[in-house]
């Protein structure tokens, strides 16, 4: 009988390892000495007030941006030396849908699929559209989509290369309850075995989904721990500037 507190495989791979990451824009330090590790299959929620550096961190993880200092290792590859090797394994959803308004949903996915070199792109695209419940709109121009549908299309785009690491930047912003529900169920459907990093201002949802939580303020790590060790109240207090620094042990 295996010990329920241990994962089924005895080897826990670290998918993301960040060490002493710093990013400076001119004189402003967006990130300052950020370090943490994310094991495979984890869901990391990143919290913090505006300007804390959350989006900057996510963009560095997506290899869209380079840090000024520090190391980043993802999937056992040095992300700073060989970002191009990693891009095929990362999916990124930002506030912007990153799709072409004048192409149809299907055309968008096929386009990105080809850039990723995915196999059998057309069928894969159709499958994904079915997964995100957009197959009835496959041939409509993306320009005609609502915000919720754009997000779903964006999710499909992020999944076209079957990524191991999925990064989400405030994916729930601007979504109505139904779209939120759809996104939720989609995430739980693809969750298995993949590693997630999500930035969200939705404290409840972010906390509920995550296995690990990271709290940033002004570029520094205030707290990083398993989800069960950081309560929602602690997070809420973190958004009150007067309370920061000393609330969380």
């Amino acid at each position, binding site marked *: 009988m295996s010990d329920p507190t241990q994962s089924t495989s005895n080897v826990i791979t670290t998918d993301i390892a960040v060490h002493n990451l710093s990013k400076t*824009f*001119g*004189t*402003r330090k967006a990130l300052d000495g950020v370090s943490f590790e994310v094991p495979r299959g984890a869901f990391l929620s990143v919290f913090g007030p505006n300007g804390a550096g959350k989006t900057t961190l996510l963009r560095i993880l997506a290899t869209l941006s380079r840090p000024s200092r520090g190391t980043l290792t993802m999937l056992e590859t040095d992300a700073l030396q060989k970002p191009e090797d990693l891009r095929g394994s990362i999916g990124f959803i930002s506030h912007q849908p990153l799709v072409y308004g004048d192409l149809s949903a299907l055309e968008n996915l096929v386009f990105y699929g080809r850039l990723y070199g995915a196999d059998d792109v057309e069928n894969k695209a159709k499958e994904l559209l079915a997964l995100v419940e957009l197959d009835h709109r496959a041939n409509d121009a993306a320009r005609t989509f609502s915000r919720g549908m754009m997000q779903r299309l964006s999710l499909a785009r992020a999944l076209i290369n079957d990524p191991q690491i999925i990064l989400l930047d405030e994916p729930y912003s601007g979504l109505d309850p139904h779209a939120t529900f759809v996104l939720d169920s989609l995430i739980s459907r693809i969750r298995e075995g993949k590693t997630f990093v999500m930035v969200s201002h939705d404290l409840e949802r972010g906390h509920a989904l995550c296995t690990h939580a990271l709290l940033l303020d002004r570029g520094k790590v205030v707290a990083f721990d398993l989800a069960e060790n950081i309560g929602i109240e602690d997070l809420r207090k973190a958004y009150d500037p007067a309370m920061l620094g000393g609330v969380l042990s």
Partner: protein
Amino acid sequence: MSNALEHSYNLAQTRQKWTTIAVIALILGLVLTTFDVIWAFFRAPIVASDVVIDPPAVLEGGTVITNQLLFSQKIFYFHVPVAIVSFVLIIAAAVYAVLHLMHHSAETDLRSKTCMEVGLVFIIGTMISGDLWTRHDWGVWWVWEPRLTTYFILTLLVIAYFVLRTAIDEPERKARFSAVFAIIAAIDAPISFGITRLIPSSIHPVLERGDSGMSPDMLIPFVCGIFGMLLVAFGIFRLRLLLQEQKLEVESLKARLEELDRQ
């Protein structure tokens, strides 16, 4: 804390050393240049211009001139060194730009930009002296001949460099894009010169200024002029760099104070 103090002290010492070197270079350079100019105007022989090459023996103004004793050619002793040095500065800016793209440091960006700044000064000097020469020789304010054209393009390139810098706010992008453009500019300038030289203009003659095969009497002031100008450029570069570095230091100190204030 004492480490930081020591570091500042060392920095100040290095700065002091460079300032002294720069000032010496500047003075020496000015001396050499003055020597060059005075010699040029009082001692160097007056030179005959080369035969007008293409189209043969036709000149603006209608008169056929094949050979002419040119007093105005003396500007050559000033103009060519300035031109050469301005070119050297653009190349230097491009070298720093390449270094910046390799190391992404603020220092290389600053040096690249300073080279461009000093280069701008020298290019304008080239343009003015070249224009005076043209005016004196041909009686017009402008001729689309290879050198003037190339230097005009070079002026535009350097101005474009600074316009680009102004258009970008974020320091990292500003530095990176400036470096890229500096490289493009440094590639474009010699191409410009080559093409305008190699393609004869059907209207404007290609004029050889006769700056090959100089007698020792001419060579000495000329070489002095080049070295003098290089030293002057170096001196100005160093002093300007010093000024910029100090300005940046003040800014970063202000930013640190602000941050401490907030905490």
